[in-house]
């Protein structure tokens, strides 16, 4: 029983990372109608930037802050330069562009930083708490994610830019009529998503160790989590990510270890989707005839 709860809590920590990336995916999906398959690699690249800064002697949280800013700007630039040309093209073209972006980031990271696996420092010491139910590191990861989520919620709920972004995502034509620069809102959305991804990458790197392929599995789980929660629902993304994290841990502990773990976890998620084809919190995509 004790082990069960241990796995649940560490699953929540992993789930926090998945939830963050899932949230980034949902944000971009809501505004651009596109699944950004490059989200994981962008996060990995951001993590390498943080790593470089830390190695150069910068204190952790300073490197963290700068990485977030750089990632935000980078995300905006990517939207403007890489995604804008295919915004009005068929969705498949945009999907292929994100896959291409994935390959580019992965390859360039491998080229600059090599494929040697690196250590990444965690700002939280790794000590057991509460009768070894959870470690301080896991708690730290959950806390950071929670703070980020609260800040995002406040931003979207109470600021005019946040409201404008929600409007632009829902109804770009009406948003323009209100004087909102929809293109700029999209860019900000991508910037925020990139920053969220960077946070996820930095939180997970101490556990997974830093290498260009670090985020591959994370992206998969995040994607599954986002769909489980409902690809149109930010709340769903977070809940879905957490569920996936816990499920992955429990499956790995009690059912099957090793590679098949991923297959089994995905199978379970798909089973849920069979009963709820739009995810737990998602709304059906309403189509006009």
């Amino acid at each position, binding site marked *: 029983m004790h082990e069960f709860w241990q796995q649940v809590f560490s699953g929540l920590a992993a789930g926090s990372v998945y939830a963050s990336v899932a949230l980034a995916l949902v944000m971009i999906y809501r505004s651009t109608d596109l699944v950004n398959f490059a989200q994981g690699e962008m996060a990995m690249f951001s993590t390498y930037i943080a790593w470089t800064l830390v190695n150069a002697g910068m204190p952790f949280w300073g490197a963290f802050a700068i990485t977030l800013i750089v990632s935000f700007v980078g995300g905006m630039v990517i939207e403007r330069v890489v995604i804008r040309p295919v915004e009005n093209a068929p969705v498949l073209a945009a999907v292929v*562009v994100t896959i291409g*972006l994935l390959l580019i980031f992965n390859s360039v990271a491998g080229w600059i930083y090599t494929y040697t696996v690196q250590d990444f420092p965690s700002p939280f010491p790794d000590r057991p708490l509460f009768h070894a139910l959870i470690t301080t590191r896991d708690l730290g990861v959950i806390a950071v994610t929670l703070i980020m989520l609260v800040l995002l919620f406040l931003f979207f709920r109470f600021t005019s830019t946040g409201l404008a972004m929600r409007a632009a995502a829902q109804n770009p034509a009406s948003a323009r009529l209100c004087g909102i620069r929809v293109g700029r809102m999209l860019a900000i959305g991508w910037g925020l998503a990139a920053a969220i991804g960077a946070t996820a990458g930095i939180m997970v790197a101490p556990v997974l160790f830093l290498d260009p392929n670090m985020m591959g599995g994370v992206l998969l789980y995040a994607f599954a989590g986002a769909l489980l929660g409902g690809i149109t629902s930010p709340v769903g993304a977070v809940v879905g990510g957490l569920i996936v994290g816990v499920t992955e841990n429990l499956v790995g502990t009690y059912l099957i270890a090793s590679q098949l773990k*991923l297959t089994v976890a995905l199978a379970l998620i798909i089973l849920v989707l069979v009963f709820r084809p739009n*995810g737990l919190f998602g709304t059906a995509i309403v189509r006009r005839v």
Partner: protein
Amino acid sequence: MEKSSAAIVPDTPSAERYGAMTVGTWRWIGTWRWIGTLALIAFAIALPFTLSNYHVFELTLVMIYAIAVLGLNILTGYNGQISLGHGGFFAAGAYTAAILMHRYGVPYWATLPPAGLICFVLGVLFGLPALRFDGPYLALVTLAMALATPQLLKYFDTWTGGQQGINLAKPMPPAGLGLDRDRWLYLIALVALLIAIRVAANMLNGRTGRAWVAIRDHPIAAAAMGIDTARYKTLAFGTSTLFTGVAGALSAIAIGYVSPESYSLFLSVSFLVGSAVGGIATIGGAIVGGFFIQFVPNLANDISDAAPWAIYGLAMLLCMYTMPHGVVGSIRSWLTRLAERTTVRHAAGGRSDQNDEGWTS
């Protein structure tokens, strides 16, 4: 007071307009099409005798990938169901052929029908639950399949040979034809490709194809018109996997080796990328896709040793920026615009300043 409203022109229905275009310009293009196709086939038959063995082998693979991509085009392009898992069906065809040849001594040419049939059934079995999913959800389900494939292949190792895979003898050409192995395989692949194109064209230009497109573009309206959406969607899945499965079997025969590593997620993604680059809702695009899948990774390696996949990714980006509907899709649009410009003047009763919206595929 402005111009009088006497010259009210009734709306010319689009079909009439298009009819005028068809009669006029397409007929002209149609004749050229026939001549061009025959010339191309003749060229394709002659080609292997002018190239080295290795190049012939590469072209054989191009044609095999083209058949696989054609399968994906049917499902995703014409019927609108995305699949990130076609590598799995490719593997199913390949392993069916391999196991039949290796365990049961079935001659290579006789493995193609069973491979196709098994993959058709698999596709239908997969397509039935897939009916519940759409868009990114379907992408996830097919993605899961692509990920599961190498795992499952390794797991059932008594049949599949596990991690080691299965080694196969390459087929010998029939005596007296004076062909060597590589050229014989090339011709087999060519014949298979031509048959595949013919079958696909028949289906896509006929009732089935129109139903598929109707379901893709206006699923509710299609159902309201009495089209059995579930049946056609499942049929699309099965047909698609049949094509890809046969391609897989051919690849096992041509390469002479199957192993789980060859059928990873990357293969599925390659198919989708090749599809998009060629033109997802086209038949000719599949051939372009085959070329892209076979050659661009190698070219990327030549250009940059250090970051070849970055070049590959860049190539993908550039293709999508310049030709978002794929190579063949863009050619089609260009031809349509050309036809419009030369035919609109001849269309009956039309105002010269009123043009139809361009047809996009």
